């Protein structure tokens, strides 16, 4: 029987992979994908605790997070496309126009 710990470990693993992806990768698209991983790790966490506690609140939150992630992906990809059209790059360390 899977205990809550298994879910939490899975969530932790996903979260850690996501954070490492955000911190280490240069490609903005991959960073966005890593953020999706973090969000999904959070979703797993929410759903797992919802089951454990017998409350539906966690699952409602998970739905909100999925909606938010969809919106975020749409806006984020739009920004990236607009940026790419100007600078022909999607590498975050080349996004340094505001650097003084």
């Amino acid at each position, binding site marked *: 029987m899977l205990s809550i710990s298994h879910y939490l470990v899975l969530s932790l693993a996903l979260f850690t992979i996501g*954070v490492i992806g*955000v*911190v*280490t*990768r*240069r490609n903005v698209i991959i*960073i966005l994908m890593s953020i999706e991983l973090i969000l999904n790790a959070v979703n797993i966490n929410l759903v797992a605790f919802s089951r454990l506690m017998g409350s539906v609140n966690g699952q409602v939150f998970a739905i909100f997070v999925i909606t938010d992630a969809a919106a975020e992906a749409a806006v984020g990809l739009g920004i990236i496309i607009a940026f790419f059209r100007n600078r022909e790059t999607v590498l*975050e*360390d080349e*996004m*340094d126009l*505001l*650097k*003084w």
Partner: protein
Amino acid sequence: MNNGFFLDHIWLIPLFPAAGALLMFLFGKRLANAAVNVICVGSVMTSFVFAGGAVLQLIARPAEDRFVQMILFDWVPAGWMHTAAGHLFYFDVSWGLMLDPLNAVMVMVVTGVGMLIHIYSTGYMAHESGYYRFFGYLNLFMFSMLTLILANNMLLLFVGWEGVGLCSYLLIGFYFLRKSASDAGKKAFIVNRVGDAGFILGLFLTLATLGTINFHQIRPAIAAGHFHVGAPVMTAIALLLFIGATGKSAQIPLYIWLPDAMEGPTPVSALIHAATMVTAGVYMVTRLNAIFQLAPHAMDVIAFVGAGTAIFAASMGLVQNDIKRVLAYSTISQLGYMFLALGVGAFSAGIFHLMTHAFFKALLFLGSGSVIHAMSGEQDMRKMGALFKKIPITAWTFLIATLAISGLPPLAGFFSKDAILGATFKRGLALWIVGWITAGMTAFYMFRLVNMTFFGKSRVSHDVEHHIHESPKSMTIPLMILAFFSIAGGWIGWPPGLGGSDRFTAFLDPVIAHAVEVPGAGEGAEGHSIEYLLMAASVLVALIGIFLARQWYIKRPEVPERIAARSPRAYRLLYRKYYVDEIYDALFVNRTKDLGTALWAFDRTIIDGAGVNGVGWLTRLISRISALWDAWIVDGIVNLSARIVWFAGSLMRFIQTGVFSGYALFIVVGVIALLSYYLHLIHMPVH
């Protein structure tokens, strides 16, 4: 107010020329020359008629009653004042005119000679531009001169005195485009200012001493004030007034303007600088003789200055080559004669000479003008000669005037000059000798002029030669009238010694105060033998002068050159007029200029430098300090705050790497740190 028509209207005499002058200045430019003639000559003629009528009516009255006064209006109602002696008096100057024997003579001379010169000018000036201006000035001059003569007080006399000075200035500078003419005008005006200062001080002192400046009140005021003969204040007044007279009447030391005044048109020289204006000083001294007779020392000064001027000017006249300049020095010399007469107390002789001199000197000037006219403007006698046949009327009248000024009987000059020399002889032999020598010099230089101009060989250049013509009638008729008076004008003063009765002196007698017994004034017992001797002496010296002039300038023209060559220094001294102009330049003119330069330097260094520029410098200093305050303190605070912010920013900049993953790492580390902290807090109670 029932003195007869003309005596009631003496106030009109100056007003006719005034109206003429006014018309000229307002409308003259638009008037034809003929209209100018009618107005200006007409106004002076009317004045002459009125003056003549008034004088005839005055003579018709008994001798002791020959005084008419007319107050036109209250001019300066000043108020109550104290005299120096402490008496209270009411000082009030009226614009009043008077007529008595003295100014009767003057008014006849001025209007008569003035009228003739006006007529003459219509011919002489006919081709000149500024015709109306010339006649406007002449009429203004007549107005001023008549005001001077007819004034019943010293202040009104001074108005006329300044008026004639102004007209003299305007007319000397008539050809104002010529620098020498405008300079001469300025010189005359400025030199006269010096004398006028003396006159005005004399006027004030008279007022403060006597409490009146009305002529007819001066004698009673002196009597009431118990001034003794030789009172210092009287001497002071007399000397101050005499300084005024030396300016106007061209005496040493202020005579220098008169020769230069010859720059004016010749009729002006005749009218103003020979016949009328320059005699104003003689008139003024005679008018105030009551004061002068109380100041014997001042009288001595006048006599010596007069005699000195007479011989000094005559000596300069000996060598001049400009026909008008000879006459100018002659005028100064003859004015010196008049002052010599006044100085020895022979006031009526001075006025007598003034009158005869007005006739023959006006004639000489007008004659010289006629010569210049004939010579197409040439004034240098060295370029004349043998003109007698070509311009006979001018020559004859000129010769008559020359004989008159030389003092040959029975012409006018003989009587007046003889009266002066006679009075001088009674006063002192030395003065008489000076006067006697001057008479000889006068005859010499006048005949030198005549011989060089009318006789001898012609030195006229060919261009001028065939233009020589006798002047028009408008010029020759005044010459002939003046010639008549140069002959007969002296007969009214025919001395008793020659079987006459000297009506002139008797006529003037009421005007002359006899405060002092003039030495020898009441004589007669002395007999006529000395008088005859003196007459013979003066005629003799005149004949010597004439003879020498004839010898040197007709028969043997090389003699004067030889004399000049033998004593070049003396000749040059005379020719350069004793260097008086140069001395005055060095002593006064240039010193005045130096004073001006010094004041300018003072202005530039002290006023401009220390004052204006100093204030500017101070302001600049203050503003510079203020600028420093602004730059360092006010701006400094602003910049400091900016700099602090900048410094802080520059520190914080190092965190802002712009490396995205770096930020992300910070966030992660931060989250972990915060989480571990809070988890630690949560777990604490569990332990």
